């Protein structure tokens, strides 16, 4: 055995933990001929003696009785809570994964609808930019006179919203659904007519006319329509259905 090999076993020699008697004998034989390793072993044995004394001095030390009392109290409290807790029943509510899946489906559906609206709006913008705009007056009075009940001309694939009295918010809802399908009329895209009301004592409209006007784009917001922020300062065209009394009964927006 050389000094390097002795260094590997010196701890076990000093700690008297070596089970291999042959290794122990070889190590002790090396100590007989090597003063340096003998000194090393003496240091390790002194350390082991010191550690043993330290371990013996701590013998009998234990946590204070108050620790056991506190733990017992905690254990009993937990046990009583466990007894008081009702037995688990089959939850009537959906499991978490089902709720998460439903939420994911809703989010995906919302995203698809949002993208569809965005695509339509982009198509409309593109169509408008491709078309050379003819100079028009700020107010274009059409000669179209509607007699009898107000009835905008029927559009293919869209529902016609009749102007009627009532709460505007109730009218906006179906309109928003229709606003997803703009339709063309003479290379223009128009929304359905949007009814305007001035109270419950309004008389039925018997005749009127459609007037082309320009409005600030922010007016779209009032009817729940999306506004392109980049074109916020560009006015938007609208058709007003004006009755004989001069009041606007309905409005539709034009692109």
């Amino acid at each position, binding site marked *: 055995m050389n000094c390097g090999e002795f260094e590997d076993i010196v701890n076990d020699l000093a700690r008297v933990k070596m089970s291999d008697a042959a290794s122990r004998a070889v190590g002790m034989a090396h100590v007989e001929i090597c003063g340096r390793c003998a000194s090393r072993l003496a240091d390790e044995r002194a350390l082991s003696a010191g550690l043993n*004394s330290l371990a013996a001095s701590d*013998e009998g*030390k234990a*946590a204070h009785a108050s620790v*056991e009392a506190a*733990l*017992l109290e*905690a*254990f009993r409290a937990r046990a009583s809570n466990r007894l008081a807790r009702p037995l688990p029943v089959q939850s009537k509510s959906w499991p978490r994964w089902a709720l998460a899946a439903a939420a994911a489906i809703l989010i995906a559906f919302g995203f698809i609808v949002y993208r569809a609206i965005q695509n339509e709006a982009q198509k409309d913008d593109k169509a408008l930019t491709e078309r050379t705009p003819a100079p028009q007056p700020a107010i274009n009075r059409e000669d179209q006179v509607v007699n009898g009940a107000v009835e905008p001309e029927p559009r293919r694939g869209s529902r016609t919203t009749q102007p009627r009295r009532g709460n505007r918010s109730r009218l906006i809802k179906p309109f928003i659904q229709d606003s997803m399908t703009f339709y063309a009329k003479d290379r223009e895209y128009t929304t359905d007519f949007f009814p305007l009301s001035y109270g419950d004592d309004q008389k039925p409209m018997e005749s009127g006319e459609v007037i082309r006007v320009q409005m600030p784009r922010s007016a779209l917001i009032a009817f729940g329509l999306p506004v392109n922020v980049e074109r916020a300062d560009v006015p938007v065209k609208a058709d007003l259905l004006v009755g004989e009394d001069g009041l606007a009964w309905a409005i539709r927006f034009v692109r």
Partner: protein
Amino acid sequence: MHSSLSDDELLALLRAGDEGAFVTLYRRRQDGIYRFALRMSGSETVAEDITQEVFMMLARGDGHYDSSRGSFSAYLFGVARNQALRRLEKDRFLSPIYEEDEGRESSTPESLITLNDPLGDLTRKEMIASVRQAVLALPAHYREVVVLCDLQEMSYADASAALGCAVGTVRSRLHRARALLVEKLRAYQVSERAVEGAAETGRVNTVNCLV
């Protein structure tokens, strides 16, 4: 009745809410855990806190003991070790003070005191205090192997299970830790001899002055 049961059997009863099993396990294992924490921290207060935390974890049923990975005792030491390291990290800016004589009786048991040899007792106490200081001055990853293997007399296998490392790592750390301890104790001895020498010189000077 419970005292004849193994740790694993007691643990099974404990999980079923058996208070007697909990008490038996606590009384069987708390002193080892307490002493480990005491030797790691050097503070009886911290040692009691750690002991309480370890067994509180059992009382709450938060433990994840896996018998295939080691003995229950090694598992408890592992939990205590994590608690101790967390506490050491938290208190790393505070100086460790061993609370041996602070309001408690001396840590030296009566069996170690021989009334016929007061000088020997003093020397032994000083030596124990030196070793204790040297152990506390070790880095935590060396201190824990010395505490487990040399002071708690735990096997390498159990120590490796408690520390979550290989047996070879335990052996090499213990080898290095003991070498560090030898150096530290040698330095203490040199400084003590210097102090004794200075005291002796002072005594001689005093005698000379008196003469």
